[in-house]
């Protein structure tokens, strides 16, 4: 992220420019996911004789994941409030809670991936599996970035407290996390719910 140190005439400019720019970035990320969603929609029925959604998906597992991620989004929102109030302790705690929940989610998703592979539906198997792994895999990739980002941003907050710069960066991180929860909502609906129905 490109930010300038606080200066009297450009403080608000920098903040609003960067947040707006980050919104636009999220828009492009949305389009990226939309592309892979389109691929999944077209290919989700192409099992080519391999296992189907009904055989592979565990709706309870996916629902639990969804609840966990929604909670983590809620706590990231709280973390955002603490951040804007420059309350270091609260921000760290709640970002860490989201981080932990994110790790749990990640573990659950990797567990699902290994289940797919064990059931003979790895990403090479057929178009359905490929597009499933592409879509959910892309989500996992984004989540890993978010988790890394939490650590990278929290370290200076821990050491130096919350500066104007970190407010900006943590806000972007919070927006990213919330964006991911929207993407997951689509994945849960289109991939899991519609897949099992």
């Amino acid at each position, binding site marked *: 992220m490109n930010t300038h140190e606080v200066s009297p005439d450009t403080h608000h400019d920098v903040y609003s420019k960067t947040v*707006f720019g980050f919104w636009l970035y999220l828009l492009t990320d949305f389009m*990226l996911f939309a592309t892979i969603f389109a691929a999944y929609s077209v290919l989700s029925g192409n099992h080519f004789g391999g296992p189907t959604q009904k055989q592979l998906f565990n709706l309870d597992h996916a629902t639990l994941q969804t609840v966990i991620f929604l909670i983590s989004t809620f706590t990231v929102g709280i973390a955002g409030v603490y951040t804007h109030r420059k309350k270091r302790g609260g921000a760290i705690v709640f970002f860490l809670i989201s981080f932990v929940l994110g790790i749990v989610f990640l573990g659950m998703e990797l567990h699902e991936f290994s289940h797919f592979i064990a059931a003979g539906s790895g990403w090479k198997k057929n178009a359905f599996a490929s597009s499933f792994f592409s879509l959910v895999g892309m989500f996992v990739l984004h989540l890993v970035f978010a988790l890394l980002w939490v650590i990278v941003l929290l370290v200076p907050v821990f050491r130096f407290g919350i500066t104007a710069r970190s407010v900006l960066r943590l806000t972007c991180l919070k927006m990213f996390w919330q964006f991911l929860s929207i993407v997951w909502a689509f994945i849960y609906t289109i991939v899991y719910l519609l897949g099992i129905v």
Partner: protein
Amino acid sequence: MSLFGRLGEHALKHDWIEYAAGVSIVGGALVVIILITYLKKWGWLWREWFTSVDHKKIGIMYIVFSAIQLAKGLIDGLMMRAQQATASGDCMGYLGAEHFQQIFTAHGVTMIFFVGMGVVFGIINLVLPLQIGARDVAFPLLNSISFWLFAAGGLYIFISLVIGVFAGTGWTAYPPLAGLKYNPGVGVDYWLWSIQISGAGSLLSGINFLVTILKMRCPGMKLMRMPVFVWATLATVVLVIFAFPILTGTIGMLSTDRLLDTKIFTADYGGNPMMYINLIWAWGHPEVYILVLPAFGIFSEVVPVFSHKKLFGYTSMVWAIAVITFLSFIVWLHHFFTMGAGANVNAFFGIMTMVIAIPTGVKVFNWLFTMYRGKVTFTTPMLWFMGFIFIFVTGGMTGVMMAIPGIDFQVHNSLFLIAHFHSVIIGGVLFGFFSGYSYWFPKFTGFRLNEKLGKYAFWFWFVGFIVAFFPLYLLGFMGATRRMNHYPAGNGWQPLFIVASIGAFLILIGVLFQAAQLYKSIKERNQNKDTTGDPWNGRALEWSTASPPPFYNFAHLPEVHSRDAFWELKKSKKDIVKRKYEDIHMPKNSMVGVNIGILSCVMGFALVWHIFWLAAITFIGILIALIARLFVKETDYYVKAEEVEQIETRSRAT
């Protein structure tokens, strides 16, 4: 897995033409490197250019890089013409089929991505901040990163000539041909990473410019007071933001098909190659408007200035741009009417396509009626505009013809199509760029271009284009399909191919005149200095600065009260109010852009050759570079008011 993946000595085996090309590229690069070392300019290059985050420097680097790519792309074109002029009947030409296929693929990628996108981002970088009265773009460091990603992607075109091969699939690389089954080698992978890496740069630029336009206009510059070039840029970057991620996702999936053996675009295992075609053109059509809208914007600047008249129909122009932008998202299927979507779908997309002709036509009429009752001077920029009218309009006409599925069934993928899109891309995008180049050259260099050589260049380009491409319309009607390395004798095609080669040669002469023009102008720069900053009696804010502008652009941010802000200022004959100089906040140079460029280039190379440990290391390196940047505290500095005053006084004195 070997340490070097699938890289081996075989990668260096080529036919004699490829050797010659490789040698000249490596040789040329060595000459440049030796020259820079001899002149002891590395420090200067690093400080003043490579690590610069100044939009003006970055813009010039884009254009220089694109010029090199244009030379390569033109040579590709000439080689293709030479092959097709000779390879008839028993003669198979001088190029093998696979080599020929790599040449036209590289030609397409070079011209669209590394010339087209390069000159577009180059000109926007140079002109946009000045026209809105800003000191730079919203995110200068991101701007530098974008450029280096662009350059990194562009390098593969050259690297693949020496190490390995390039794709031979055509520039859109349709699967299943571009998939693992039919093309397991490195060619398509070079294509993939070239586009993926430079595409990332483009995406970031799109975000950067959009924030710049919406957040950094100087006081008083309401949206409807912006120069039309800025509106065109706004539309362009909206297209970039919505369209480029589609490209990222689509070729990302082709990458997993090739790297991880996924079955997304395969013919079997349930894959769907037709979906690739839909997705790539969902990006591809907006892409061509990304290329041409800035050219339209450039003409909206050039025509009023050289007609000494206000632009006709400002509001219409803005609406036309908006309509074109919107429509460009709902026409993509016209690139594959012949894939069999059925009559209703084909008809819908065909009709949407021809509707775009309406706002485009409005713009053409508005430009012409800007000339009406104006005082027109045919300087080089204005000549390029006239050339555009003739060539682009015929290209547009043939485009509307092909929008009709019944006609497209006959001319799809034929040389008729090739003639059409070269007409609109060369006549539109390239002529637009050349017009802008001649127009803005004095602003950014401080001296004028030689007009006479510029005019010779134009005429050779214009006549050369007609001679090179109009025969292709006829060839299309004669049943000549595109991408042929050879064709039967006796059907009358060869004479037309020979005429086309002559045209290509004329274009080459045009380019040589442009090179000569640049050389002569640099040599005579002291006699042709632009001392006023306003050599053409311009209308927009960039002409209110010195030539070249100081690195901070404006000592005082302008205050605007109308359209054609600078023109109105000149008319009102207001003296430049001697306001107090203030400290100016400027960003520092940074090597983050260069680092990310180098790391990405190596990462892509590693992925191409399956050197996965290297790919992982460079990827982590990119992350480290970005994270390290987060911890840099001194990212900018203040230019003291006294220094600003010194610079301003010095430039006003000359």
